[in-house]
Each structure stands twice: as structure tokens, then as C-alpha cells.
């Protein structure tokens, strides 16, 4: 066979995949519920210079397995390299890079805001619009619980900040895949 026949692979046709995706990624990790696992994950991220945006850890339906959900910026980090490095940790069983349109992701946040009598109604109206709940009240403050996507919580924060945001606590996103309609 002669070099350059169509059956062969032309070198000029070979392409590499894009390293950066440019979007936010949610990685869902199933890990063994053993001491030190989180330290291994956190250590890996700091050692390789990967920056975690949010991190949430909790139990799963199986007591031997925990779920770690973390979000990362795919414009800054090569997600493929991140997942491959994570896979090298012996205690990491499974990693899923969640597809945005097939994923239900939720985060919970608590906001303590200044709420003097004159603007209390405004704030409660915002809360209403965002389907947020007032979970604590004092003479000068309201504490509000919001659940939703990261974007929703971001925009609630933007709305409420001008009123005097005293404190905010966010959980980081957790995520699960959507069921197919025939399931």
C-alpha cells in the first residue's frame, strides 16, 4: 500500500479535543465513606492548582458511600484533566460530569438582612417572588431561606444586597440526573 492512500489516516486531519469548555461544570463523585477521603480530594485540588467553586458532601442511600458534589469553572480548568486526576484516588468510585440539560441542581442559602420597619415589606415581597421563606425575625433583621439553582440564589443576593446584607451562608450545589420520561 502506498503512503497517502485514502484508507490511511491523514495527519492533517488529526485534531485534538478542546481542553477548556468555557462553562460551569458540576461533578458528582461517589466516594467510599472512609476517613481522609475529603482530605485526599481537597489535597489533590490544591496540589494541582484547581480551584473549587463550591463543594457539598453528604451521605447517599448506601451508608458505605458518600456523595461529593463540586462545581468548577470549565473556562479556567481542563475538566477532563480534573476528572482523570480524581479517578486516580483509590477511594473515588465514580465521577459524573453532569450534563446541564439533564441535571437537577439545587443549592440552599440563608441570608440575614437588615429590615427596618420601613423596608420590611419590600424585602418580604422579594422573598415571595423567589419563593423564599422567612425563617427568623428580629426587631431589625429578617433571616431568609432560599432554595434553587446557583443562578437563582445569585440573583436573589443581588436584589437583597442593597437593603443591607449582614450575613450569608450557602451550601454549594447538589445535583442529580433527571429521570427519563419512560422510567
Amino acid at each position: 500500500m502506498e503512503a497517502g492512500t485514502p484508507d490511511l489516516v491523514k495527519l492533517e486531519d488529526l485534531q485534538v479535543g478542546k481542553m477548556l469548555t468555557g462553562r460551569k461544570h458540576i461533578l458528582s463523585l461517589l466516594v467510599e465513606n472512609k476517613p481522609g477521603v475529603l482530605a485526599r480530594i481537597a489535597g489533590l485540588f490544591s496540589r494541582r492548582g484547581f480551584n473549587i467553586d463550591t463543594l457539598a458532601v453528604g451521605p447517599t442511600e448506601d451508608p458505605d458511600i458518600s456523595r461529593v458534589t463540586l462545581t468548577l469553572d470549565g473556562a479556567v480548568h481542563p475538566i477532563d484533566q480534573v476528572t482523570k486526576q480524581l479517578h486516580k484516588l483509590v477511594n473515588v468510585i465514580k465521577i459524573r460530569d453532569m450534563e446541564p440539560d439533564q441535571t437537577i441542581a439545587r443549592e440552599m442559602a440563608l441570608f440575614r438582612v437588615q429590615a427596618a420597619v420601613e423596608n420590611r415589606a419590600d424585602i418580604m415581597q422579594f422573598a415571595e417572588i423567589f419563593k423564599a421563606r422567612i425563617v427568623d425575625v428580629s426587631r431589625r433583621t429578617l433571616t431568609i431561606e432560599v432554595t434553587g439553582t446557583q443562578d437563582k440564589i445569585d440573583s436573589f443576593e443581588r436584589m437583597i444586597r442593597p437593603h443591607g446584607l449582614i450575613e450569608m451562608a450557602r451550601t454549594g450545589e447538589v445535583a442529580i440526573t433527571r429521570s427519563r420520561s419512560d422510567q
Partner: protein
Amino acid sequence: MRAADALCEALKAEGVEHVFGIPGGANLPTYDALYDADLLHIQSRHEQGAGHAAEGYAKATGRVGVAFATSGPGATNLVTAIADAMMDSVPTVFITGQVRTELIGTDGFQEADVTGITLPVVKHSFLVTDPRQIPQYIHEAFHIANTGRPGPVLVDVPQDLSRADIEYEPAEGSPNLPGYKPTTEGNIKQIRIAAKALANARRPVIYAGGGVVNADASQELIDFATSDKLPVTLTVMGLGAFPAPHEQWLGMLGMHGTRTANYAMDNADLILAIGSRFDDRITGKLSEFAPRAKFVHIDVDPAEISKNVPAHIPIVGDAKDVLPKLTREYRALKADTSRLDEWWGQIREWQAEHPLGYADSSDSVIKPQFMIEAMYEATEGEAIITSDVGQHQMWAAQYYHFSRPRQWINSGGLGTMGFGLPAAIGAKVARPDDTVVCLAGDGSLVMVCQEFATAAAHDIPVKVFLMNNGYMGMVRQWQELFWDGRYSSVELGDSPDWVKLAEAFGWSAARCDDKRELTGAMRDALETDGPVLLDVHVDKTENCFPMIPAGAAARDMVG
């Protein structure tokens, strides 16, 4: 049975015959168990020595090397060796004593969080929390250390738990590790694409590394390269995986590689990386590395693929599995070898224009390169050579023409001074019938000279050929070339008197500073029983060339 006895039984069940280490408070139970166990223990004089000896043992054989240390400082002294084993993918198991369970976290005497300290430099680690875990953890540690991409595994055993009484049952079969399933079989579709691309390449280069040695795939590499006339270059970790005298051999590549190898990479249209990882010492300036090439990357560790250089054809798998398939697929294409004629013409031109060479002295002064050539002659090119890091390491890589895998044992990734002597001790224990020579630098050797005692006490007949230039030579070279000759804390002077020092440890020793006597002095050293040091005084200010300055491109080699 005592858990410490079970630990020794578990080691034997893994086929362990030799262990390197030092006892201390927290691993006393283990050493008490060793007293009766049918294991040969080599008592090192510093835990770093034990660790590197375990590495040398593993590198010489492919079998898992084992080192023991006590808690706290014993364990922290191991850290350099553990990091070294991680960087060079050396199958090793390190077993440390830990303070009693009730003391953990209290800053107890000789307590150090060694699992925490070593977290970034282990393939995996275990902290024993129940004595019944010990046999299982040992089994898992060996499995992890020695499969997939090999590496160091640490098992930390609290003192009280190793004294506990347990039922010992040998762990059998593959351990159940749900998160550890290394891919060793290459994807045949990818392999086929690689073969088809190669058949179309006009300027291909095989760039292979330590992964080929680790996979014991040297013959498979030779078969593949010679299935056509494919040029081969190797990293410093890969030397010996392809015989240096071969006509398709371009020499080592990288910072101190041959111009031919580096120019070939620079001009290649297809680079086949096999068990190599595009380290900065290979690529130089990444943005200008091999600008004309497409990349096939074969590695057992998927995370290495596209880490530094994006691969066009990634193949995850063990070289031992992938290379025969690739050879078969490539042969079936019956590629036209003559398409490579022009490429070989160019390569031969580079080789003729830029052979490795040096200006030899016209008097009795020993040039360091001459010393390596004399060593090659005296050992007939057959010895196992260990070294540290630095000029002597690079000269050995250039001038000792390694012809078989596991013949060259050095610290490539971490670049550890003082690796060579303990590694030679480990290699000699593993391969008693081979000649083992440590080519040492004087800066390196003084860092581990306590290991002279280890070799003497156990009568391990290693030969140390000391390249003595009175400097930390590579650092001096950099200060000369890149720091305006401001020699800052780099001179070592004439202390110690190496002959006296070696003799004080019970070694035979001699000095040589005349090149006419060197080969003979080396032969004498090789023929002398027991451990021998030959202190060779070489030209103090010779530089190692050629060289790609750090951060420069391959085509900008100097010297």
C-alpha cells in the same frame, strides 16, 4: 496470632523476601515479629537510605520494594524516598509505626501525621484503625503498588494495634477496591487509527520512557520499532528499554539529550509517546515543543494523556498490551519504508554534524566523560549502574550505552541527591549475581554516606565510583552559565577524605587522578571482594553539554 506476626506473614504471602528499615519505639512489635519471621531484613542507617534501597530493589527487578520505619522522625525521614517513588512510578510499600491509638492527635512523643504528610506523594495510603485490617491492607497495598501505573503505598500501623491478637487468614485473590480498576488493555480502534496515521507519517519518532521499563515491554518496543525503520529516542527513565547501540537509536532526548534526538522531535510530523509524560525536561518551552507534530500518546495512566501536550490519538493501556497490537496492525498495512528515506537522510546528517563529544585532556587530567567511558569499558557495558542527580547522572546517561532495561537506576523525576548509594545497595540485594556500580557525585554521596555502614555490616559488595569534582557540579554549571559566574555556596572543597571515610566504615578504597590508570583502577575495584569505593578526581569545571537552557526550545540547544 499477634497482628505484627500477621503483618510479616502477609508480607511473605506477597512474595517478599527482603525488607529494608530501622526499628524504633512505635514499630517495636513489628521488629519483634521480624526476629522469628523468615524475612531478610537489611538494617539501614537512615530511613531515607532504607526507602531508596527499597526503590533500587524494585527498579532492578520490577518486584515491590519494602521499607520499614518507626513513627515521627522515622516516618518523616522516609518522605523523600516516598516522593521519589511517586515521581518515578516505583512499586514500593512503606510500613511505618504510629503512636498508640489513644495518643493519636495529642502531639504524643514521636507522633507525626505521616498519612497526612505523605498524602500528595503516595499512590495510596492506609491508616490501620483495627488490627484485623492489617493482612487485608497489606494485600491491597501490594496490589495497588504493583498494578496500573506503579507507585508507593504507605501503611501506617499504630503500635498498640500491632500488638493485638488477631485471627490471621491469608488474603487471597484480587482485592475488592471499587474505585481502583486500572485500564491495561488498549482500545483496538484507537490502536488501528494510530497504525494508519503512522503509515502515513514521513517524519515519525518514537519517544518512549520509564513506562516501557515498568511494563517489561522492552522487547515489544524493539519489535515495534523494527517492524519498520522507526527512529527511537528515550527519556532518562527509559534508557535501556531500547538498546543504545542500535542503528535506529537517536540517543536520549531532553535537556541534556543529543541534538539529533531533540532536532528529530522538533521536526517530526508524528510523535509516538509510549510510557513517557512530556516532562518539562523533555519539552523545554512547551509552546514551541515539536510544533510540526501530531501526537499518539500511549500510557497506562489516563491522567498523563493530554496533561502537558494534547494528544491527537490517546491510547490508555499498558505498553506490554498495546505495543504488540500496534505492531500487528501496522505490519498489516505494509507501509512503504522508502517514505522514511528522506527523514533518515536528515537524521544521519544531524548525527554526523553533532555527535556527542568532548575535548579530552592532553595530560593526565580525567574528564568526567572519559570517566564514564572508562566505566563502560571496565564493566564491559554490563553493570547495573545507579546514580543520583546532576552532571554525573547526565554524563552516564550520555556515555554509558545502556543495552537492557533495569540496567540504569536513577532518580529522574524528583531528582534526589543521595539516591545512588542506597539504591545500589537495594539493587545488589535483589540481583546478587550482577555487578552493581553506583556512579556517585561527591555532593550526593556525602548526603547518604552513613549507608556505607549498611553495606559493610551486611557485606553487600556494591562498587562506588565517585565522580569527585569538589562541587555540586550541575548547580555550579548553572551559576556559571545563567548567574554570571557568581558561585554561591556550591564548592565542596576537599572534605571529606573519601578514602579514609570509606575505610573507616570498613570498605576497601582507592583514589585515582590519572586517566592512564583509571580503567585499571576500576577493574581492580570490581575484582576486589566486598564493598569498594574508587574516588576519581575529575576536571572540576567541566560542563555537561549539549543543553537546552531551562524554558528554551529544543532547536536552541547550546554547547
